[in-house]
């Protein structure tokens, strides 16, 4: 019980925390004002010495001010554990008092960026379902304190009397560098490329804002259009560009995967999964079994060859789901047996093998084709308007087969099956996603029909969970109604808490 005593009075984080907070503030300040620095360096020779002196003094004063601020933030940051609540007081002028009951805590994460690694402290984030950002972020704790805090909270929460569960077991899953390489080569490279583009675009915008301020926007634009026009004239260049692009795509996904998932290790402990990963920023997440709403197991053809897949764990979130990508917890590079272990942990003794798959009716195929046709039409019109030549319509000889193929494949991959407790929905085109949802985690159900669907006697069933929607499109009305009734029955008779 010494853990509880340790946190029963208000206490501050480790003194090294001042450094972490200070550097954090500096980083934020730098991010906001880096173009000023850029300007300064550029115009360095033109600034008179007296002004320079003022600038130096100003910068120095700012640095000192921020240091004092960091110290005050540290000084006013206090936390304790009381009566199964985690209590935090912070704020220099505006005091904030936060109190979180243990059973509302979703995860406790450890994080270490490079600086925190060097000075050997851990950042502890405590998350609830409420907000997108971590509700409580303690920037610096020694490992001993951090794990004591974690233990104090989790033991309370689980209500288990077996306090000494801390036996280091063999990890369920440990992914070495070679395996990680396999994972990164089989990633969705198109997605990585798009991500990279997004980053570059943001960067370009910042740069062009800067040039705009300097009145040199034309220069940059000219530079780009010049290069672009020479590109248009040269097919070889375009092909080379494409090759470079794909190399970049592969490289960027490799870098992304290695940075995020380096040395991925997963432990199964009690009722939780502990996940450790990261290269520059080390992260550890404790995923409580009961807080997981549904999981998705995904594969693509190449991953299938290697026998690996990844698992997404979805937890309860409030508000719009799309904006909270980083709250999705992902384990990459799982072997089939490991997937089975995790599935068994989350949904014990649920066997979905051998249950025959139910597919959507052919109305769904019609709908997919109609949507595809509409998309093709819009694409063609756009291309025609932009390029203004009939030649461009030849692209359809490639596009149409691709569309038909992907529609047929995704129609075939769309299925659902279930036993008494668990629903499995399969979907995907290139990738295959299998979503597992226990019926009692459903928040509400919806039956949807357009007037055409009503004529064809088919309906969509939509399950709203605390972590997003799951949809079964276009199944026969009778079947839809059966599932609808059954889900309600399961939810209303369930005694288990959904989180």
């Amino acid at each position, binding site marked *: 019980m010494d853990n509880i005593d340790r946190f029963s009075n208000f206490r501050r984080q480790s003194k090294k925390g001042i450094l972490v907070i200070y550097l954090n503030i500096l980083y934020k300040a730098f991010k906001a004002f880096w173009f000023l620095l850029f300007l300064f360096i550029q115009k360095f020779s033109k600034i008179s010495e007296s002004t320079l002196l003022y600038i130096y003094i100003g910068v120095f004063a700012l640095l000192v001010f921020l240091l004092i601020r960091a110290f005050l933030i540290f000084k006013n940051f206090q936390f304790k554990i009381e009566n199964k609540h985690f209590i935090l007081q912070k704020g220099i002028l505006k005091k904030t008092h936060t109190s979180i009951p243990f059973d509302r805590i979703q995860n406790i994460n450890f994080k270490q960026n490079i600086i925190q690694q060097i000075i050997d402290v851990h950042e502890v984030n405590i998350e609830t379902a409420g907000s997108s950002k971590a509700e409580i972020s303690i920037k610096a704790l020694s490992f001993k304190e951090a794990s004591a805090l974690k233990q104090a909270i989790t033991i309370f929460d689980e209500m288990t009397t077996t306090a000494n569960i801390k036996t280091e077991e063999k990890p369920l899953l440990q992914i070495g560098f070679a395996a990680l390489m396999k994972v990164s080569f089989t990633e969705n490279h198109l997605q990585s490329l798009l991500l990279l583009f997004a980053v570059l675009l943001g960067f370009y915008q910042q740069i062009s804002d800067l040039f705009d301020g300097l009145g040199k926007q034309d220069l940059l634009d000219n530079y780009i259009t010049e290069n672009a026009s020479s590109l248009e004239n040269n097919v070889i260049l375009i092909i080379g560009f494409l090759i470079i692009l794909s190399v970049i795509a592969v490289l960027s996904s490799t870098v992304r995967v290695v940075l995020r998932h380096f040395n991925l290790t997963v432990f199964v402990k009690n009722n939780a999964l502990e996940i450790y990963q990261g290269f520059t920023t080390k992260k550890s997440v404790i995923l409580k079994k009961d807080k997981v709403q549904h999981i998705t197991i995904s594969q693509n053809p190449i991953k299938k060859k290697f026998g690996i897949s990844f698992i997404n764990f979805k937890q309860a979130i*409030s508000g719009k789901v799309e904006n909270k990508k980083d709250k999705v917890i992902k384990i990459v590079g799982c072997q089939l047996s490991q997937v089975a272990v995790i599935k068994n942990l989350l949904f014990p003794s649920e066997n979905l093998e051998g*249950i025959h798959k139910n597919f959507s009716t052919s109305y769904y195929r019609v709908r997919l084709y109609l949507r595809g046709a509409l998309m093709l039409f819009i694409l063609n019109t756009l291309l025609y308007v932009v390029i203004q030549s009939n030649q461009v319509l030849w692209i359809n000889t490639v596009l149409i087969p691709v569309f038909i193929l992907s529609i047929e494949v995704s129609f075939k991959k769309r299925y659902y099956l279930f036993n008494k407790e668990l629903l499995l929905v399969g979907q995907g085109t290139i990738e295959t996603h299998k979503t597992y949802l226990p019926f009692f985690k459903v*928040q*509400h159900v919806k039956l949807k029909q357009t*007037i055409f669907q009503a004529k064809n006697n088919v309906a969509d069933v939509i399950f709203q969970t605390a972590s997003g*929607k799951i949809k079964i499109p276009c199944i026969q009305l009778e079947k839809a109604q059966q599932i609808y009734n059954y889900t309600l029955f399961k939810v209303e008779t369930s005694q288990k808490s959904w989180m």
Partner: protein
Amino acid sequence: MTDSFQNIAVTSFPDIIKIDFKSISNKYLKVILIHVFLVFLILFVALLITDYSGVFKILENTIWLYLIVFIVFIAVVAIKSIGFKKMKYVVREKDISYKKGVFFRSLTTVPFNRIQHIEIDEGPVSRFFNLVSLSVFTAGDSSDDLKISGLLKEEAQQIKEFISNKIDG
């Protein structure tokens, strides 16, 4: 054990389809129509102003424009009236359901033991008819949880009370 779902006796649990749904109070149709009328009044006035100030010279004969607006008005009134007849709700012992829609039909059921909170709203026009709307919210992305408009105020209060008791009990 369970080879397929069909083996589980379907008839052993309550069937939402066979339940008689209650219609919304007829007064709410008036509220809907007043709303439609107000919107089209604003549209009509805007059209009148643009016509007489001569900002737009699209059509030689602006009477067509008025006619189109009028036809749309009639169509909207017709659709809303049919749509109103389709709005139905039912409160069962353990859940609350609502269905609506002519072209896009939907049926939503929220079990009481998943409800986070309940809200009763009064619109300016609805208040005149002593009508309110009742919304229930669940966890997660609650943007399209259940909302029943046009309930009598007393009835909505009763439902709210009923659900609150069920949740706490």
